[in-house]
């Protein structure tokens, strides 16, 4: 069967040709820093003197590190709350703004606006203006007769202001949903209407299943990003994780360890543990995908 074999070789060549730019980038720019950081994770490295090999010392040290435990708990709570909230908001708004009606283009832009800010200083100032003791939120509450607290600087509420910030910037997920909603051929709906299917049946029967590849994408990417979330906590807590470590995200702790306390080796070990955690989560989602993601 040499014909079949030739076809297979041809297929492999085509595949690797298309993959070539990525492969070059992978080996040229990505994998070397990753390997280097893995090596650092096995050393004492202060960035200024050569790393000293300590084997698994950094990893063992993490077990009894209170800050690691605190930051893990903060990060897990953040991921579990911000990801569903953000995706739900993004999907709801995308569905509401799907149809081309009068004004809808402007609405889409307005709802995307918060995402344009990124993690700029302006956002940090704004968030404080809203959630501080004399902020906008408390002024509104005062009208109803409730005396508010300083939401950002109170340990029990500070994380929620960051979750809200993440949810508020749902624009990218919304755009992805919008794009894939428009990918659904209109004749599907026409056919369904002829068959007498109502709006809800159309949504559960057509929209939702055809949207699953992008729901899957958004879930995976948001989880990967949320676990590594750094900027919101950095700009709002001034890079400290205050108050009382209630916004000490895992990567913020890692950053403080590496760049403020000059323990880059330990920080690298922290990073690799996070990679394993994220990989486990992502892997689980990929395994479950066979059950709920419909291609084509």
């Amino acid at each position, binding site marked *: 069967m040499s014909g079949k074999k030739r076809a297979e070789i041809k297929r492999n060549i085509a595949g690797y040709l298309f993959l070539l730019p990525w492969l070059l980038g992978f080996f040229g720019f990505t994998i070397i820093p990753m390997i280097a950081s893995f090596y650092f994770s096995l050393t004492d490295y202060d960035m200024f003197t050569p790393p000293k090999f300590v084997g698994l010392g950094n990893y063992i040290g993490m077990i009894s590190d209170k800050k690691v435990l605190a930051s893990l708990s903060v990060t897990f709570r953040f991921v579990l709350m911000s990801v569903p909230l953000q995706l739900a908001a993004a999907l709801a708004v995308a569905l509401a703004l799907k149809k081309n009606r009068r004004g809808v283009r402007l609405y889409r832009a307005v709802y995307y606006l918060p995402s344009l800010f990124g993690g700029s200083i302006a956002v940090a100032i704004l968030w404080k203006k809203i959630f501080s003791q004399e902020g906008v939120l408390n002024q509104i509450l005062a009208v109803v007769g409730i005396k508010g607290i300083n939401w950002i600087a109170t340990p029990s509420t500070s994380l929620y202001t960051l979750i809200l910030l993440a949810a508020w910037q749902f624009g990218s997920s919304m755009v992805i949903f919008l794009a894939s909603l428009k990918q659904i051929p209109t004749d599907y709906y026409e056919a369904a209407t002829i068959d007498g299917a109502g709006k809800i049946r159309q949504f559960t029967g057509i929209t939702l299943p055809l949207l699953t590849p992008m729901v899957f994408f958004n879930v995976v990417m948001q989880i990967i990003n949320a676990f590594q979330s750094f900027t919101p906590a950095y700009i709002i807590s001034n890079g400290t994780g*205050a108050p009382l470590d209630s916004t000490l995200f895992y990567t913020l702790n890692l950053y403080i360890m590496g760049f403020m306390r000059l323990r880059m080796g330990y920080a690298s070990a922290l990073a690799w543990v996070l990679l394993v955690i994220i990989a486990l989560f992502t892997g689980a989602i990929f395994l479950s995908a066979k059950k709920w993601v419909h291609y084509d």
Partner: protein
Amino acid sequence: MKIQQVLATLLAALILAGCSAGSSGSPSSATQPPAQAASQAPEAANANTPAPAKDIEISFTWWGDTRRNEIYGAVCDDFEAANPGIKVIREPAAFGEYWDKLSTRIAGGNAPDVMGIHANFGSDLATRGVLADLQPYIDSGIFEVDGIEDSLIQSSRINGLLCILPQGITIECMYINQTLLDEVGIDLGIDYKNNNGTFTYASFLEAAKRFTEAAKAKGMDGVYFGAPGGSDNVASLQYWSRTTLGGIDLYKDEGGLGITEDALSKWFALHKELIDIGAAADAATSLEDASAPLEDKLFTRGKVLISSTSANQYSQYQAQMTDSELYLLPFPEAEDGSSYNALVASHFAISNQADDAHKEAAAKFLNHFFNRESAVSIFKLEQGVPINSKLADIVAKSLDPLSAYVIGFVNDYTAKGARFWVYPPAGSNEFTQLLSTAAQSVSYGQSAPEEAAKSLYSEAEAAFAKIN
């Protein structure tokens, strides 16, 4: 159709951008900064002459605001005019990420030749051989020291090595809002208006009580007396330990903590009491205030009587608080009247990664920065009083009244025996982080002062032990 239009537009824009980028020499001249490309024309002309002056470029990085960038840029211009063979590549950075970038550059083998160094990081860099020894340049006369107090040079040594030099000195001190004090209507009985005297820690607490009661009686809500520095502030703790513990320094000379667990506990207790009696803002309010921009601080808004920062920020505060009369006063003194005021400074250092020629050019640059009247009169009080005292006197004559007040304050207390900081030992950054955690756990009421002190002490010991 549409995608093709989009791509065509993109491509056209790309080509346009590529052209303009090429002409400004951006991505195309990979290793040459445009400054160099621009200087190639005169250089080519020089090439005809038999012995062309060999141009040398030194890179110079500092942190600061837009105004400082302009001042330092002007100093660089002034230096280049006086030293035709040397160009200074200016690399200003915002303070927020200054340290991240600098450490990455040093680790990456691309350290700037001249760099601004914060006192907190000086030891961490000096003890790791990152900074060049400056003694040889003093010995060879490239860096002149005649105008500079020898004590300033000597106290800049870290473990005997002279590798950072202060470009400006200042005093970490307290600011008092006289207008607010008059409004509340009490008198503190201290002649701070004439740079004469200050609180003791005991009288501070007593005054705090008086002020708070008086303010309450007048129905002034949300007005605070303030604290002698933050409980999480290493500098404030340093003053307190020197003053109340009979001159004991926070750090031991050989590294490690110089004060006891019990002392830490008292420090936390002092601040807790200030909060409890309502003289200092509660934990959440002060945390927010600590990260608020200068324009938005409680002190700036006239809600706090006493705040603390370095003396050279006086003009900036006064500029924001046009309706208030502000005075500087030193941190509290000891019961016997002895004062432990210390000078603080920002520093410059030269990279050890530079070759000899660059190091020498960098030393010339520093010399110009510190010891030339033209440069110092541009610098004025930008990062404190210039350390060349002769030039500082000349500069003082041309200052506006606000800056003159600051320089008078610094000089008066320097004359009264303010010492230079003992440099925080390597590992002090770890202590800064640990202190902040412990201080918060007390102010938020999570731990009692004794508990927080206990865990802080053991964690600090462990951290220092790891380094030494």
